[in-house]
């Protein structure tokens, strides 16, 4: 399969079952909503070292938020419910509670409701106030008003936790670092327009793809040498002589379809730069298909065989 001169490998991305949640963060204006959301989704690139993978899904207009202020929706993913709950509470306490004018609300409904402000309320030292207010559908929602130095911190008691998928990915292989990065930027711009997904790495792009295992016994993952351009000829390389740089985009989403659609949009945007701009190949990362529960096959996805 070739798109605009770019070869699409006959391979698949291997992804895993995760637990996910969505939080709506509002503030006096978007500047402060971003300050809160950037803090909350900071140091959340990979579950390996950060506990969760998180990112800003999209901006919300004042009509879309519970309290009528501008805001952002944030998605957060973890390998298990316990870690997700723990990380959400920590990040709520250190990033949202602390941010001037910020408030947090549930962004997803589920049978599994996890604590958003339920335990954070004790910061109020007995002065916290609970309010149960019906939403647009008449369903009662519980909010906590916690007195803080800038006025009152408002948060919903719980948010929903859902089954989700993490680790959808593709690799962009090209002639130079600059050209591959430009293609990845185009891919990220296209993918950020889509709902229910986040790309958790810095700017959405990761340059240090890993393989399982290492020559050092204590390391359980190490550099993906088969895709490292400077090791061509030294190791069993996946790269042909033209390729000087490889970058990866990892995508987490609420459903298989969400991830497949965003991968398609991203790959198509990267391929739009084409062979003449130094983009030669698109591949994907997997572990032989034995570890992950979900396989995102590049060619069927790009043929439009997966739709929402």
């Amino acid at each position, binding site marked *: 399969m070739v798109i605009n001169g770019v070869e699409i490998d006959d391979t698949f991305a291997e992804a895993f079952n995760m637990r996910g949640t969505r939080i709506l963060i509002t503030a006096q204006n978007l500047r402060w909503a971003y300050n809160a959301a950037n803090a909350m989704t900071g140091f959340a690139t990979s579950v390996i070292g950060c506990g969760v993978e998180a990112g800003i899904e999209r901006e919300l207009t004042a009509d879309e938020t519970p309290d009528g*202020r501008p805001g952002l929706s944030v998605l957060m993913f973890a390998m298990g419910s316990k870690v997700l709950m723990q990380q959400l509470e920590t990040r709520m306490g250190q990033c949202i509670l602390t941010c001037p004018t910020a408030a947090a609300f549930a962004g997803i409904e589920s049978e599994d409701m996890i604590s958003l402000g339920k335990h954070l309320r004790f910061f109020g030292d007995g002065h916290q106030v609970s309010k149960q207010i019906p939403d647009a559908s008449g369903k009662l929602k519980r909010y906590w008003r916690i007195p803080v130095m800038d006025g009152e911190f408002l948060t919903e008691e719980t948010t929903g936790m859902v089954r989700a998928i993490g680790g959808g990915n593709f690799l962009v292989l090209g002639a130079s670092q600059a050209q591959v990065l430009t293609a990845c930027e185009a891919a990220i711009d296209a993918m950020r327009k889509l709902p229910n997904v986040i790309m958790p790495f810095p700017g959405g792009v990761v340059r240090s793809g890993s393989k399982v295992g290492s020559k050092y016994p204590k390391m359980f993952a190490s550099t993906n040498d088969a895709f490292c351009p400077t090791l061509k000829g030294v190791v069993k390389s996946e790269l042909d002589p033209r390729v000087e740089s490889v970058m990866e985009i990892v995508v987490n989403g609420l459903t298989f379809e969400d991830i497949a659609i965003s991968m398609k949009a991203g790959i198509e945007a990267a391929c739009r730069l084409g062979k003449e701009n130094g983009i030669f190949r698109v591949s994907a990362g997997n572990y032989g298909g034995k570890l992950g529960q979900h396989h995102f096959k590049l060619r069927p996805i790009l043929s439009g065989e997966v739709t929402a």
Partner: protein
Amino acid sequence: MSHITLTAKAVARSVDCRTLLPQALQGKTVAEITAMKLAANLSVADVFEVSVDTTSEAPAVTFKNTTSAHQYIGFGMTSGQINVTGDAGDFLGAQLQNGVLICKGNAGARAGDRMRRGMLLIEGNAGDYCASDMMAGTLGVLGTTGAYLGYGMKRGTLLLANTPAAQATWIDCGFHTLPFLNILYKSFKRLDSRFAQVSSQRVQRWMGDMGGLGKAEILVIQP
């Protein structure tokens, strides 16, 4: 779901309306409701005209032509909505457990007494001991309030359009712009009530009743 309309007949005595709750009247026919006893010698048929609309989306009861003689409207209500288009007597919404109670006229004494949850919205004036011993929930009054406002009130919000008389056991916490009011006002917008027009997030906050727990608040809406 049924929307039951109870149109009051002129009465020379007080009427205890505590059994006429949305959840209690659900599924009942006009004949069944009119046969219900309000007191040993008083049935619904003696004091109300009854009509039932079974196409309603949510359980509701509307009282029409009521006066201060109609007491205990919404007493212990646990769900649904009650609309009172006229005045209401004493103990309006007392021991309210949940749901929404809107009174377009004036309410008697002890409105919202020992209320635990839900919303009681009085568009007219409230009598003495409004919100007495209230435990939680939201009680709004657009008119005036009487003596001993929030007497023994433990928790909950008393939202007022008019500044009440100062009381020794209620402490002025100053003027504030509270973000949660936006969410509360949004919930008012769904209601057929003058409360839907309230929009100011600027309030004067009082806390009390310091003679007891003291975790309740009076919010006086500022223009």
